[in-house]
């Protein structure tokens, strides 16, 4: 076979390897290979050389692809888990703070007046002014919004020891039968104590005696009734009232009543 013929077949082999050869030319190669042992050797060399080139090219391209990926990030183990746990907790905590903030902003706390100072310690029992007023907690109501504004104002004046003002404010409430029916005990107690402090003892007794034993303010009424007699100079009546208190094991002024009794006996 001539060199030209050999080169011709080598080109056909290259085209075959590149998938560019048609069926007719492929048959021509097959026939030539069968007939020429030298061509068989040349084809074998060419295939092996081209396989070498292809494998080297594929290896190079494969390396290029492999190097084109971004570096694989090294993952840490513990921190993401900690964050996973902490984040929801912090989020819920934040929500709770926000909820508390808006709740307290929209519903301001019920304004409580300062407690009335106790005069029991080192008290001078002969001075009416030292007598402790009823606790504001007794006078206020959880249903403040339902209570007449006048009542609120009367309580404020009473706490400020402006008893006359308090009685003046309470006056129109006496016409509110519904209010009186619901708040008779505290309403009458406040009037009685105010009159006591204003040394209107008869008026005070009239108010306080109206509070029946079934009324929750009865213990208060009995106490201030006794004091009304005491400061009015009605020692006998005061003694009777105070002894009843001392003999009542559950009365909240039992100890102080005992002290008053001592002064009466003297």
């Amino acid at each position, binding site marked *: 076979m001539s060199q030209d013929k050999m080169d011709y077949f080598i080109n056909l082999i290259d085209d*075959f390897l*590149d998938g560019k050869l048609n069926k007719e030319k492929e048959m021509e190669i097959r026939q030539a290979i069968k007939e020429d042992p030298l061509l068989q050797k040349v084809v074998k060399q060419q295939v092996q050389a081209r*396989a070498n*080139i292809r494998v*080297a090219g594929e290896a190079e391209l494969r390396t290029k692809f492999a190097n084109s990926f971004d570096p694989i990030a090294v993952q840490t183990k513990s921190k993401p888990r900690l964050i996973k746990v902490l984040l929801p907790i912090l989020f819920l905590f934040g929500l709770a703070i926000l909820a508390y903030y808006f709740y307290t902003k929209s519903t301001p706390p019920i304004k409580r007046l300062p407690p009335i100072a106790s005069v029991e310690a080192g008290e001078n029992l002969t001075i009416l002014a030292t007598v402790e007023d009823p606790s504001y907690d007794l006078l206020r109501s959880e249903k403040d919004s339902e209570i007449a504004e006048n009542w609120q104002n009367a309580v404020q004046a009473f706490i400020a020891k402006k008893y006359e003002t308090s009685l003046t404010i309470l006056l129109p409430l006496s016409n509110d039968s519904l209010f009186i029916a619901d708040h008779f005990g505290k309403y009458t107690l406040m009037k009685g104590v105010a009159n006591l402090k204003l040394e209107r003892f008869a008026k005070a007794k009239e108010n306080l005696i109206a509070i029946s034993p079934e009324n929750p303010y009865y213990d208060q009424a009995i106490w201030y009734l006794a004091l009304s007699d005491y400061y009015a100079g009605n020692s006998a009546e005061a003694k009777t009232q105070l002894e009843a208190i001392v003999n009542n094991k559950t009365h909240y002024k039992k100890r102080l009543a005992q002290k008053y009794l001592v002064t009466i006996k003297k």
Partner: protein
Amino acid sequence: MHKPSKYTDDQLIAGMKSGGKDFENISTYMFHAYKGFLPKIKNKLHLSQQQMQDAYADSLVKLIRHIKNGSFRKESKVSSYFYTIFYNTCVDVSRKNASNKNILTLELLEYDARERDLLKMIDNKEEAAQVVRLIHTLGNTCQRILMDWGYYGYSMDEIAERSNLSNAESARSMKYKCLKKLKKLINTKMDSL
């Protein structure tokens, strides 16, 4: 690696076969275009990220080979065809639990279908054998010229430019000499076996 615009399947195939700059652009395009398969198959087979990336690179090389030598017959979309190659490669890796990184799979070292066809026309002895690799014993210039011609499909003008040769004729002459040298090495090796 620059991410190029989209190609149709016909453009991909034509560009791969024509070689040269088109081959370079399209291979880059394919690298980015099919990355979406990585997490999909990773979730199925639970391979490491490194194993997935190695399998992806191998699979792209196989796809390019099949397109170049005509094994891909357009019976499916190129992307679907690639998915099949990629999935099968990953299954192979999973079975072998391959721990070696950046090492070519055996398939990439074997004769391809076209080469085997020609070898069968001569005799059957080489059918299953791996390619006896000798090209790396040539100098870098010869390797570059032979790969640019025989694998990437650059024209002689482009090869001359890439290898700092004076012109296409010089490139053609160099390619002839390098190929002859390679064949001589192969002959010597084969005779010694």
